[in-house]
């Protein structure tokens, strides 16, 4: 089934994006990446410790890096991080993350939209991480975002699609790709997001915190594919309790 996902002018075959944070050992990442089938992988940018090793050596060379601007509290800080990330020579995709709420790690929509506008003008492929708020989403898209990335639940919580209703509204109203990011804890939740019409899911903690991250990556791959196929297939109508059941087998020719 040929169902490419074109994002920022790039054609992707996988609709599962993965992260590189929180692994027990970064040496798990190549096997996780392989099992996930993902082509896009997120990274963060931080100060180098003396002689410290970065993450890039653990990422398969064929993957597309999606640096985030985590640590940014304002649009200006996000712009600075994005420019530094691009200077690393790994492309011009950037996940805007502007957070000043240290407890719940909820994104600041106003600062995110401002950063999106500046970076889109500079030619970045901008993927803003947002609350699933229609106005913020529209502001980011009007500012040039290639997609929006609403959260399913707060970052790193594995609590699932708590914002399902709001994400459904984004899916209904927006013409741009919606990539569900953050909070997805189980493959069934990623599957559900895809069944609803999400363009892709970004999963980090759920895979990295699993007892067997490689197997969990494979599970998420299957779930995202299943959900996408279900969306493309077009689910049949749901009957209410009041309508009663409808036999799948013929109601004639009974042996009685």
């Amino acid at each position, binding site marked *: 089934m040929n169902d490419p996902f074109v994002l920022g002018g790039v054609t992707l075959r996988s609709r599962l994006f993965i992260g590189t944070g929180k692994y027990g050992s970064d040496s798990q990442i190549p096997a996780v990446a392989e099992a996930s089938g993902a082509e896009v992988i*997120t990274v963060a940018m931080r100060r180098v410790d003396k002689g410290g090793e970065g*993450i890039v050596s653990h990422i398969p060379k064929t993957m597309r890096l999606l640096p985030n601007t985590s640590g940014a509290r304002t649009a200006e800080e996000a712009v600075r991080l994005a420019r530094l990330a691009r200077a690393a020579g790994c492309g011009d995709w950037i996940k805007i993350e502007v957070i000043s709420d240290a407890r719940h790690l909820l994104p600041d929509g106003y600062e995110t939209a401002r950063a999106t506008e500046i970076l889109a003008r500079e030619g970045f492929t901008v993927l803003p991480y947002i609350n699933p708020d229609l106005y913020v989403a529209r502001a980011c898209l009007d500012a040039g975002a290639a997609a929006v990335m609403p959260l399913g639940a707060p970052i790193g919580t594995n609590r699932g699609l708590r914002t399902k209703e709001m994400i459904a509204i984004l899916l209904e109203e927006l013409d741009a790709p919606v990539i569900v990011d953050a909070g997805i804890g189980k493959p069934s939740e990623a599957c559900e997001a895809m069944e609803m019409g999400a363009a892709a899911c970004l999963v980090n903690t759920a895979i990295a915190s699993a007892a067997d991250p490689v197997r969990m990556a494979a599970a998420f791959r299957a779930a995202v594919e299943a959900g996408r196929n279900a969306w493309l297939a077009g689910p049949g109508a749901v009957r209410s309790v009041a309508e009663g059941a409808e036999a799948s087998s013929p109601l004639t020719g009974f042996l009685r």
Partner: protein
Amino acid sequence: MKLVINGEQVSLDDGLTIDGMLHARGNDPAVVVVERNGDIVPAAAFADTPLADGDSIEIVHFVGGG
């Protein structure tokens, strides 16, 4: 000369370039990005960019993140 690297006050020999400083710290120039006084220094210019007294330097790289 005295400068600030990643928020820490350090003393380095006069005339040291960015490339020399990275090697002295054990940082691989191929995988880091350097900002000098707020401006990104292209990797191709590391060897030709001398550090100066009072410089503020940031050396960053990609780490795990979501």
